[in-house]
């Protein structure tokens, strides 16, 4: 990407020998490439430096201050968090939520992609189109819809449960069910993304591979095990890592459904940081909570980048 092509370099080197006016103009233009390139990239660079890199270091600085941001307290905010039961509850919830949601999104997304891929091509478009609606709706607003679905007395979910002979649940008020409910909404929202990615992956597998495996007498399960999954391996790995980042950073669902309750049992890093930093006004402590996400994000990003490099080279 963005390298001077061999042709251009050749023009560059040969030009001084026979300088005609047209060639001279071309030469100047080619030399000015770098300058133009930097000018055109400048807004992007300013944006990244000013509103991503600077805030990141600023977050580290903030996390080292006291609540009123008047004194430097070193790592006290981090030490304080590590002694708090609530913080460890946030760590536990984040881990459970992220791992379970990502796993189920991948399983359901792959299942749906395989099933849609089996259907006649004409119908696939419709199913693919309808499947993506959860992903397209603004998450804060669809979470509002789920909030109402989970309402215990007047809403649909408990009505159906009672109809099927189960006891009604107070979905968002009991710790276990609140965690379950929040995870379910994330699975609802994210499965379409996995499905669409895997479906694109399935379409790119050469048909000959299936034909030759059919000649070898492979059944459907063997074709999945020995052709489909190995061919999708890289896409599966990248989507899992990518989704780990996005899922760990979830904010909207928890903020709308439970605000972290009952008794802080559904807080994730993002919502807990919001609660401390924005709602309660302890900016440094909130910044410290957010920063705990960073190592996980960095490790995932590293492996995503490696995965992409590997498959393009």
């Amino acid at each position: 990407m963005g390298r001077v092509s061999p042709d251009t370099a050749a023009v560059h080197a040969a030009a001084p020998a026979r300088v005609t006016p047209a060639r001279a103009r071309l030469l100047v233009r080619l030399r000015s490439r770098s300058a133009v390139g930097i000018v055109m990239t400048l807004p992007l660079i300013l944006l990244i430096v000013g509103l991503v890199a600077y805030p990141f270091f600023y977050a580290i600085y903030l996390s080292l201050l006291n609540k009123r941001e008047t004194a430097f307290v070193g790592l006290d905010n981090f030490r304080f968090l590590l002694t708090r039961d609530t913080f460890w509850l946030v760590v536990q919830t984040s881990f459970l939520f992220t791992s379970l949601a990502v796993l189920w999104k991948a399983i359901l997304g792959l299942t749906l992609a395989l099933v849609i891929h089996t259907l006649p091509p004409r119908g696939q478009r419709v199913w693919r189109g309808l499947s993506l609606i959860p992903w397209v709706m603004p998450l804060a607003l669809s979470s509002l819809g789920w909030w109402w679905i989970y309402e215990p007395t007047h809403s649909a979910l408990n009505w159906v449960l009672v109809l099927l002979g189960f006891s009604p649940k107070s979905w968002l008020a009991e710790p276990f069910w609140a965690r379950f409910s929040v995870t379910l909404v994330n699975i609802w929202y994210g499965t379409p993304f996995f499905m669409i990615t895997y479906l694109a992956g399935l379409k790119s597998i050469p048909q000959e591979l299936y034909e030759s495996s059919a000649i070898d007498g492979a059944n459907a399960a063997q074709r999945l095990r020995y052709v489909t999954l190995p061919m999708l391996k890289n896409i599966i790995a990248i989507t899992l890592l990518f989704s780990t980042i996005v899922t760990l950073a979830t904010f909207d669902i928890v903020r709308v459904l439970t605000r972290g309750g009952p008794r802080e049992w559904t807080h994730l890093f993002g919502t807990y940081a919001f609660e401390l930093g924005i709602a309660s006004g302890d900016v440094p402590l909130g910044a410290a909570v957010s920063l705990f996400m960073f190592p996980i994000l960095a490790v995932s990003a590293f492996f995503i980048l490696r995965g992409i490099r590997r498959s393009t080279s």
Partner: protein
Amino acid sequence: MIGSPRARRTATLLVCYGIVGAFMVFFLFPPYWMALTSLKTNQEIESLEGIPLIIQQGATLKHYRDLFTKTDFLVYLKNSVLVTVPTVLVSMVISVMAAYALSRLGFLGAGVIGTGVFLVYLVPDSLLFIPLFKVIGGLGLLNSKWSLLVVYPTAIVPFCTWLLIGYFASIPRELDEAALVDGANHFQMLVRIFLPVAVPGLIAATIFAFTVSWSGFLYPLAFIYSSSEQVLTAGTVTSLIKGDVYHWGGLMAGALLASLPPVLLYAFLMDYYISGLTAGSTKA
């Protein structure tokens, strides 16, 4: 007992349709339930009699009327439009210029910037909203909708740049070298050669920019506290809920209407939307 291949194919299809059907119920029940509730009378929503999954006592548009006449919904709508339009324009201009430069004008550090752009795309909004809250405060933009115009491009530009680099890279180099010899400058080349060829990519990137800007929730919730400056997502969630009495009908009407623009855009431009969405994994 093994059936004929044809019978087996039919059985497979039936199982597949059963599974797809179950997924569709799961995916589409929430919007259906939202639409249903928004059309029910309050008495029917509160009633514990009958079947809640259908409308039995007649549909009403009262909740939609109330939304426009008795709430700040139109203010939020106006603010969402005022924020989204310039956010999309600014983001697209920055992305197009950067993608052109990074894919065509080889200069020192272009490769590093390309990788950096991708890494920044992976930074979620819940990582940096607290320092950004202070930055926005420093700019004097707290409690202003224009704060969103400052922060949204950080979530949009990296992905759009990355997407467009892919599209621009597929344009043959002979084309721009011919144009250079003909005396076209970089601006003319970008506008006359690159943009027309990259239209599908531009549409996919614009859809992405629109969706991010329209759906953003954390930033407006953190930066804006006055109703008059609030946008649709945060406004619907925070202020359409009145005290202890939940106005479910009105709330669902608001949530559904506010969700409509991205859903409609998706419905009409589905193929572009999906090409943008899958670009990351299939190009990868």
